[in-house]
């Protein structure tokens, strides 16, 4: 599903956010990207959904090289990816239902079809009575579930979540994680950036650990030192 070859990202003047990352993630895998703040987790995700362009190396998604893309290519790539952020990124002026439906409408689905699907997803995520509430009237957990519904509405093959539980208490965070595992069970590849080692330990799936831009194992050895991950 995802293949990275010698991927590096350097920000001017000389900040190396990611250094020589090579890895492979299979379709349907659930992977944590762990690391302290500034380790390069968000940069890795941004490179995958092409908000950033790598300085070196190659990114292949579904066998397609997405390292260098024009604006059309980036838009096409993002249609396959569901994005979830720590700060939810919901539009405050419209309802939960409209927030979710917007993502389908911009891809050319009819208003009715988009809203029907948005409602189904919100119901599935336990928000059937909150669909017409505006984001600010929702709790943080509810807002994140709306964001997850939006990420799912276009049936993505890949979900990238950047600290999706960062603003949530433990109970709600677990609920969100259960939802994401449910998506994984349906065959969606999930990649979650987090610095919450407790959560990683609880779920015990594959972990990519980043330290100062380099891929390391739990002991802090780099991929080169510890062999292929």
């Amino acid at each position, binding site marked *: 599903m995802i293949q990275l070859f010698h991927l590096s990202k350097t920000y001017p003047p000389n900040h190396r956010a990611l250094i020589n990352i090579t890895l492979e993630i299979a379709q349907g895998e659930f992977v944590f990207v762990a690391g302290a703040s500034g380790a390069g987790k968000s940069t890795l995700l941004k490179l995958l*959904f092409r908000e950033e362009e790598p300085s070196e190396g190659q990114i292949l998604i579904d066998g397609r090289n997405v390292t260098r893309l024009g604006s059309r290519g980036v838009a096409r*790539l*993002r249609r396959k990816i569901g994005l979830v952020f720590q700060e939810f990124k919901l539009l405050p002026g419209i309802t939960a239902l409209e927030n979710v439906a917007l993502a389908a409408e*911009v*891809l050319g689905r009819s208003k009715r079809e988009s809203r029907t699907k948005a409602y189904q997803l919100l119901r599935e995520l336990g928000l059937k009575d909150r669909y017409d509430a505006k984001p600010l009237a929702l709790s943080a957990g509810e807002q994140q579930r709306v964001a997850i519904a*939006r990420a799912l509405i*276009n049936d993505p093959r890949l979900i990238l979540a950047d600290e999706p539980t960062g603003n949530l208490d433990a109970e709600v965070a677990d609920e969100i994680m259960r939802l994401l595992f449910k998506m994984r069970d349906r065959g969606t590849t999930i990649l979650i950036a987090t610095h919450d080692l407790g959560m990683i330990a609880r779920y015990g799936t594959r972990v990519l650990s980043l330290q100062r831009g380099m891929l390391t194992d739990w002991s802090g050895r780099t991929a080169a030192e510890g062999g292929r991950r």
Partner: protein
Amino acid sequence: MKIFLVGFVLRRVRSNLRQLFWTHMLTAGTMAMTLFVFGGFMLLETNLQGLLKGWGDQIQIIGYLKNGLAAHEIQTLVKRVEAMPEVQRVRHITQEQAWRDFQSALGHQSGLLDGLPREILPASVEILLKPAQRDGPVVAQLADRLKQENGIASVEYPQEWVERLGLAVLAVEWIKWILGGVLFLATFFIVGSTVKLAVLARKDEVEIMQLVGASEALIQAPFVIEGMIQGLAAATISIGGLWLVYVLIQNELPSMGGLLGALGELQFLNLNSLALLLVIGWLLGAAGSVISLRRFVRSWNASSART
């Protein structure tokens, strides 16, 4: 673009126009003023051209006859001039007729002529040219030929005034494009600023649309359509304003003297000119939006990539 996207774009346009109603109104008003000034020059040019054409229709050369010509000599002269290819009609004005015309032109001050001999005014021939021959050079050449005629003492024609008016029309046309160009450029930037405001007001929405894979065309389309609507609204307002000015001046025209009084009846802009104003408004709004959006989104992408 899929058919459902059209509905989506139109809903965005409606919501954006509501959200920034007064900003859009202000921009449309500014554009309307620019188009009004430009349209005003078009109106002036149209009417000056009408005046020029009216004068052209009345262009005639007056040949003053030498004193003491016999009737048959005058008749021969008139026939000879009538035979010239540029000439439509020749009218012989006797000294008596000239005296009467002058008297009636003086009106109640005709008493000034008392005691003057009636032969003081020369007899003349008024030569009306064929419509196709009323160009400056043709008139001048004919006047030169007439001067060579034995019976003609001197020749007069209003060429200087026609040329001056022609120059005035040309000047108005140039001013229209130069001033219009400067105003259009200024308006172009104002439209650009409005688009920036509109994009900033919907920054979050644009960002989310980008993140879920909306095409650039879809993201930009509502802003461009808003620009077009602004331009068309501005052109319509300016045409309304011009019509109002036209009606006001038309009503006042009978009491005006000078050049305006000479116009007799004003002309409004013809359909082509009205269409031109609408097209300019539409283009100004669309181009202002497209160019500003491109620059703005480019700089925005660059700055968001840095953060």
